């Protein structure tokens, strides 16, 4: 099975983001960047499929600035086979990224797309669902478990994947026909750290360079960002010395219990 893993370069999850003074966005100059945490989980799952013999070829793809190559290298160091970078200096929106990924998925003839459920910068939670729609494939979103099987969705059809989804009320299990798009949630696995030898090896793995034009995709933005501001700060609170004082404050000052 051929697996495509889209990954995104984002501000490191541990960095406190700052809004730019001109209110056009957040500061990214001289800020530590990393692979989006949910993308790491997707790469890990694909590499485990390779190790288990269910995947033969794991392709890591990213769309964005030239520096996204570093993020692809991280995926290669974790164990993916090769990379694809769709280079664009336009800020890409989820719909545009989904169109680019569709073109790559079709070009490569992949059987499965494994990706993060959301990126922690835009917090959109859209790209996987959009990609599935454009490909006409089923979608397993927010998954915490997956099992490739031969029985097929609803029985009879060869090749399916049963996934457990994290939904608001608990868990849901659905069976999907393959090919499919899966978006991963945090409990699916714990991503590995790349070892030094693997980081060295990853430097020799190929990365194919493409552009939106190569793939025939119009990436013109549909949303115009008018302003980005900091949220209003909360007013400073008070420290209490004891549980008794806390309960008194909640009863008589805040009147919430």
């Amino acid at each position, binding site marked *: 099975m051929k697996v495509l893993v889209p990954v995104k370069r984002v*501000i490191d999850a541990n960095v*406190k*983001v700052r*809004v730019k003074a001109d209110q056009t966005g*957040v500061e990214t100059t001289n800020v530590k960047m990393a692979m989006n945490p949910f993308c790491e989980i997707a790469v890990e799952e694909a590499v485990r499929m390779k190790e288990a013999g269910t995947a033969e070829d794991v392709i890591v793809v990213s769309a964005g600035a030239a520096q996204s190559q570093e993020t692809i290298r991280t995926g290669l160091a974790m164990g993916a086979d090769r990379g694809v970078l769709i280079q664009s200096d336009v800020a890409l*929106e*989820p*719909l*545009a990224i989904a169109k680019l990924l569709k073109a790559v998925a079709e070009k490569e003839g992949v059987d499965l797309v494994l990706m993060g459920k959301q990126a*922690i910068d835009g*917090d959109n*939670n*859209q*790209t996987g*669902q*959009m*990609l599935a*729609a454009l490909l006409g*494939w*089923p*979608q397993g*979103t927010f998954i915490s478990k997956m099992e490739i099987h031969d029985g097929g*969705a*609803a029985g009879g059809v060869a090749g399916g994947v*049963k996934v457990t989804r*994290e*939904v*608001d*009320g*608990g*868990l849901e*299990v*659905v*069976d999907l*026909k393959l090919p499919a798009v899966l978006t991963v*949630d*945090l*409990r699916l696995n714990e991503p590995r750290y790349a070892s030094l030898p693997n980081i060295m090896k990853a430097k020799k793995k190929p990365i194919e360079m493409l552009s939106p034009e190569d793939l025939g995709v119009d990436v013109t*933005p*549909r*949303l*115009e*960002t*008018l*302003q*980005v*501001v*900091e*949220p209003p700060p*909360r007013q400073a*609170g*008070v*420290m209490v*010395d004891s549980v*008794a004082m*806390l309960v008194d404050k*909640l009863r008589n000052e*805040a009147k*919430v*219990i």
Partner: protein
Amino acid sequence: MSILIIAEHDNASLRPATLNTLTAAGELDGEVHILIAGADCAGAADAAAKLPGVAKVRVADAPEYGHELAENLAPLIAKLATDYTHVLAPATTFGKNVMPRAAALLDVQQVSDISAIEGADTFVRPIYAGNAMATVKSLDTIKLITVRATAFETAAEDGGSAVTETVESTGDTGLASFVGQELTKSERPELTTAGIVISGGRGMQSGENFAMLERIADKLGAAVGASRAAVDAGFVPNDYQVGQTGKVVAPDLYIAIGISGAIQHLAGMKDSKVIVAINKDEEAPIFQVADYGLVADLFQAVPELEEALG
């Protein structure tokens, strides 16, 4: 302008976030219709017809809509959407799953998780775990939007009398089939709509220790939540998770126990009216957003709290 709300429901009744979505729709100043797509969903359709401000309920009652499968629902939404200027759904796991699929079928760039409406095409939404608020203008002809429920009041459930219209099913795509579900059974209120939430973090040390929080929750009529750290550590299931990648809550009272207050957690609870933090580390960032902070060992303070609540 005309607005279609994609209702989240369980066939018998409406899910609460649908009511917050209705409030958001009301701010758009156009005729509001609501779609009930389900199987044997007359109960939910009747409830929708009573909502004040709804002019028409469109009902698609067919077996293929019984389990909210996005593969079957998105084509229906995309087909109906062309009658409207705006299509709104709650930003719950239901709305997050189905709406982007419908948006892509319509070639529309969805606006996710809006927290305010500035005009017919201009919306405010949190980005970077709520550390920044972006005002965006949609250039698409039809706006597909998911609504952050806690940012809009809960609409009244009675007083309206909408007309009901049957909509034909767009059919079963056969791409996906529902196998089963394990819903967390709880007598306590739902996390996202509870008036009081008590959450535990890594400091709870084990899943068993959450029983202490459950006892307090039962005294206060509260829901129980958790930080991502507590979920990662396997103390509680993921549907307890409050934060950037979990649920967003904004109760009247939020009690954080043994939670350090990582930005990813604060993203899910900092709009609560009153925040209480109990943590033994006085440097914990949670104290920066807390209205009342108590530096204490939770294994002493929580039993004391339980006793003090009588």
